[in-house]
């Protein structure tokens, strides 16, 4: 077992395109939950409509990539309105139930036989990245970066754009949350009725935040389509949403950089535990484990690490413990 190469590989993934995409989606979730207290358990649904907006526009209708992005974002807007209008006036749990169900229903519809002409059914859609790679200033055949932190040209391009979007969105969130608008949003997290009694239209604010966070989730989905150059419906299972929640809680909810640090730490841990377990397996430590078992054990292992984190650092990596404890009493 080569611990150095496992560490190197884990670090590489912490800065890689997938970590950036998850960071982006988690920024949307942070707007929902971290700042506003909206329980969105279907963030993957927004990623899915974003990814398929790109996929269907590019692969089926042969439209340029920017149109695909626009379609993806538009679908997310419609989805947010459909989810929000009936539920945002009700208690918080209704949004939670609705989002988790809606995300799963959308996945099942997109993979269904009748949708196949548009979505490619269970096989999904391919050849989605040409429009993106045309713009690539890097050489697809070369490797870029230093030492362990090197990526091929195409991935480097996705990586730069996605981290760029992450930085942009962090700036956006920072500006919004340091404005009177953000103050109303945080007030809603604390007590809706109090904010309403001060003349603020709570429903409208919640709708705005649901749409904004959903759009950022869809943007992450668009980047996923571009990164993989293909999409399948079964990538958008509920576990993606739960990974995003883990990322948010790990990094620190209600903090601008929480989702970013969370995503990097999460993918580092995922790859590190995976590498470690397989390394130990190859040394014959786990004779009872077959190939596919490692995945399950690894997830359990990550779960244990998270439990430890939540016990000893409930506010996440960069959360404010003082602020957190105030709400407990």
């Amino acid at each position, binding site marked *: 077992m080569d611990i150095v190469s496992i560490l190197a590989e884990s670090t590489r993934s912490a800065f890689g395109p997938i970590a950036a995409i998850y960071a982006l989606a988690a920024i949307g979730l942070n707007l929902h939950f971290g700042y506003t207290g909206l329980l969105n358990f279907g963030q993957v649904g927004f990623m899915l409509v974003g990814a398929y907006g790109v996929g269907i526009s590019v692969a089926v209708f042969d439209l340029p990539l920017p149109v695909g992005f626009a379609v993806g974002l538009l679908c997310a807007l419609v989805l947010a309105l459909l989810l929000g209008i009936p539920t945002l006036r009700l208690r918080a749990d209704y949004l939670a139930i609705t989002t988790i169900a809606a995300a799963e229903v959308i996945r099942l519809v997109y993979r269904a036989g009748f949708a196949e002409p548009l979505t490619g059914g269970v096989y999904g859609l391919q050849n989605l990245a040409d429009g993106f790679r045309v713009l690539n200033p890097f050489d697809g055949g070369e490797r870029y970066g230093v030492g362990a932190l090197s990526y091929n040209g195409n991935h480097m391009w996705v990586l730069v754009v996605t981290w760029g979007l992450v930085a942009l969105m962090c700036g956006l969130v920072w*500006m*919004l949350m340091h*404005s*009177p*608008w*953000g*103050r*109303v949003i*945080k*007030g809603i*997290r*604390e*007590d809706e*009725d*109090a*904010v*309403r*009694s*001060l*003349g*603020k*239209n*709570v429903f409208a604010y919640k709708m*705005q935040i649901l749409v904004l966070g959903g759009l950022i989730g869809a943007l992450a989905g668009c980047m996923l389509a571009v990164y993989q150059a293909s999409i399948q419906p079964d990538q958008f299972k509920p576990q993606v949403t739960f990974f995003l929640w883990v990322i948010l809680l790990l990094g620190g909810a209600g903090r601008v950089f929480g989702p970013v640090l969370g995503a990097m730490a999460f993918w580092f841990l995922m790859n590190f535990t995976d590498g470690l377990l397989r390394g130990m397996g190859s040394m014959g430590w786990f004779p009872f484990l077959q190939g596919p078992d490692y995945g399950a054990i690894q997830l359990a292992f990550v779960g244990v690490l998270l439990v430890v984190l939540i016990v000893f650092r409930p506010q996440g990596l960069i959360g404010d413990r*003082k*602020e957190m404890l*105030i*709400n407990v*009493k």
Partner: protein
Amino acid sequence: MSSEATNSSAGVEADRMAGAEPVPGSGKSDPILVADGVRRSFGGLTAVDVEHLEVQRGTITALIGPNGAGKSTLFNLLTGFDRVDRGTWTFEGVGINGRPGHRVARAGMVRTFQLTKALTRMTVLDNMLLGAQGQVGERMAGAFLRNVWAGQERANTRRALELLERFKLIDKRDEMAGALSGGQRKLLEMARALMTDPSMIMLDEPMAGVNPALVQSLLEHITSLRDEGKTVLFVEHDMDVIMGISDWIVVLAQGRVIAEGRPSDIRSNQQVIDAYLGAQEDDSAEARGSGDD
């Protein structure tokens, strides 16, 4: 505050109420709030059933009644935080029944809650600033125009600090509201409601849990609000407080208005004594005797 022709001359309570009859549902000369046939039931229980109620502008009106009489429910209904089964009401001559809570507040009728609602994970100053109306920076697009809202923010902050000073919370301005004591939260909630610059303020048990020394200064605040021309409607259980500062008292029992009148009318009203005051009346009469002059 001087000016206000209607108030400066009104030195005594008789003038403020301008000849209103001490009977349930009596008409007032200059009502700011008029409610008609307001009814709300929870399952089989009729919590509120008010035939007619008028609140005189520029007065302190107390709403009293035993526990479960429907006082808080009536507050919730009038301020758009609960829906009536039937009934209409007007505020400043405009029908506002059916309006959601935030629009009632914008119209100038602002309420506080019996169970205090401090926004715990925000600073005291941020709590106050949330009360300010018409903020450009509270619109999503406006949030990005920092130089447009910065000036407004400074003016609001100045006003917030003045209010905090008045309510003796100035030293706490940068602390989390969750770190305040129960009584301090009551004060904060009242100051925050005033930050909206309402024409009528409805306080649901503002003195509950506030220490006696502070009650005195709260009472002064409430009196000075009236003297500034605002209308105050408040729910309270402490008879000394009620008799001491109210211009008018409305007694609610089982959802109905059973009596209305000046403190002197209510004290001697047999129906009220039976329904609510009972033995308490004797105590407060004594307290008054020693307290006056």
